[in-house]
């Protein structure tokens, strides 16, 4: 009998704390599969954020650090500069990366730190119970935008890939989604490329993954995937925003 599907070695044998229907589990698995395929687990060091993915340090089988809110790119910088042979990635949500950690994110890109960032954008603060995020879209209802995000009062969302594409140090920025099998496979390809670039010393990569939050969006998992397709993808178009690595 052939085994066609099993837990990647880079994932621990742990029940995660993620809500039913959350796509964090898929994204964790994609990262782990890439770590397995590239055979880098022994050199890999991950940095967990503050937010829903805070316990990522329990789920990946490689060495892990937990960083202060938004500081993962700075912590990853310290780790990478200490031992450049290590493969260093951060796994961050939108509040962590695009609000409190904007400076750390932009400047890690500007320095073209040779690290990989997995950025999970679900347009809401999940862990704290569904508040407005830097990526909450105009009109979107959250606990702290109960009448819908009004750009006149609450400003506009930050489009991370678009912004980082303008930074000279960014090597690779791509936005993907995990709302369908086809897109899950594409997301894995992008994550793999980001890690390959790091191995090749090509510099800063960020893969933004559009993700659902059934619990705080107040939608069934299938409805949440539909909501993502209908509302998020038009606002956050998928695709490659920058790829300097391909031409190098």
């Amino acid at each position, binding site marked *: 009998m052939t085994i066609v599907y099993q837990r990647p070695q880079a994932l621990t044998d742990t029940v995660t704390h993620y809500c039913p229907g959350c796509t964090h589990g898929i994204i964790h698995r994609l990262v782990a599969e890439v770590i397995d395929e590239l055979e880098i687990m022994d050199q890999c*060091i991950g940095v967990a954020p503050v937010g829903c993915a*805070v316990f990522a340090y329990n789920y990946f089988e*490689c060495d*892990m650090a937990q960083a202060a809110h938004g500081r993962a790119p*700075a*912590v990853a910088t310290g*780790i990478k500069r200490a031992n450049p042979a290590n493969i260093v990635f951060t796994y961050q949500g939108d509040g962590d990366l695009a609000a409190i950690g904007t400076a750390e994110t932009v400047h890690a890109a500007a320095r073209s730190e040779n690290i990989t960032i997995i950025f999970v954008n679900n347009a809401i603060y999940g862990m704290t119970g569904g508040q407005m995020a830097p990526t909450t879209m105009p009109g979107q209802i959250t606990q702290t935008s109960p009448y819908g995000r009004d750009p006149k009062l609450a400003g506009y969302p930050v489009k991370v890939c678009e912004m980082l594409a303008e930074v000279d140090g960014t090597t690779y920025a791509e936005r993907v989604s995990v709302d369908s099998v086809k897109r899950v496979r594409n997301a894995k390809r992008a994550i793999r490329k980001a890690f390959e670039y790091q191995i090749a010393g090509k510099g800063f990569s960020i893969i933004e993954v559009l993700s659902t939050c059934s619990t705080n969006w107040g939608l069934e998992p299938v409805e949440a995937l539909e909501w993502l397709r209908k509302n998020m993808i038009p606002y956050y178009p998928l695709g490659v925003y920058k790829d300097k690595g391909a031409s190098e």
Partner: protein
Amino acid sequence: MAEKVLMKGNEAVAEAAIMAGCRHFFGYPITPQTELAAYMAKRMPKLGGTYLQAESEIAAINMVYGASAAGVRAMTSSSSPGLSLKSEGLSYLAGSDLPAVVVNIQRGGPGLGGIRPSQADYFHATRSTGHGDFHLIVLAPNTVQEMFDLTIEAFELADKYRVTAMVLGDGMLGQVMEPVDISRAGNITTFAKDWALTGTQGKRSKNIVNSLYLEAEELEMLNLKRYEKYAEVGKYARTDSYLTEDAEVIVVAYGICARIAKNAVNGARKKGVKAGLIRPITLWPFPKKQMKAAAATAKAFVVVEMSMGQMVEDVELSIRCSRPVILCSRTGGMVPTDEAVISAIMEADRTERS
């Protein structure tokens, strides 16, 4: 032969760090510690080390967190407003039991304050360095030589106890030039760091560097354990004493103020007052025993510091307010004069022995 080099205090700290094996410096420009970062920027690339000018003080301390987690000796330096920003990182370093060396070349505050020397971050360094239950080891040099010596000691203590050790200087100590004997560096210890994030290399199970514990019982237990470690660190409480044997008035001062106080003790002695000086070298742990011992023979204390009165509270606590304690201080970047300290000593001498 001792090799003496003329250096600024800031440069002496930087050279000491390099001699202590630090190859990872993360900083952000701020006066009056600038020469420290500049020295590192010049030397580190030639040593194969990292000088990284961070986008913020917050990023710099978190880069130290990362480098320290990866097992190397790392440091950052700043001045007072920068330390406010580093507070978050200092708390996380403590919560994750990571070693680090942090330098504060203090300037006047609060707010943007000024750029003249100050000791107004004493409370910040010894009491409220960040959120939660934790301490730093705080070392207070009073010469450029000690800036050098105590920086090396800071790295050793940080690694030994997995804590942050702070070198607490001031704008004057950072800027003044004095001869330094750099051959005093001594032996540097290599500490085994089996907890460090170096990649498992297929030889061990994963390491985690973390400060999150949602179970209150577990977090309490870890805090208690950390405080057992701090109790152990307590034995490093250290002072330098001058003419204390027969002293009736004990002057307590650290850093640059201790040099002024020493002159004042000599001045007071010429006027017939038996004055002596105790200079805390460690501010945390504070030398409580030494203060208590001095209270047995002295009738009064004078505390000299460049703040509205911060260390004075530790002196009063150490002697349980059993003797009068007179504060002689200037603030906002002003430095006390010998004469002002002599006056305070004379006033203390007039108090009746209780």
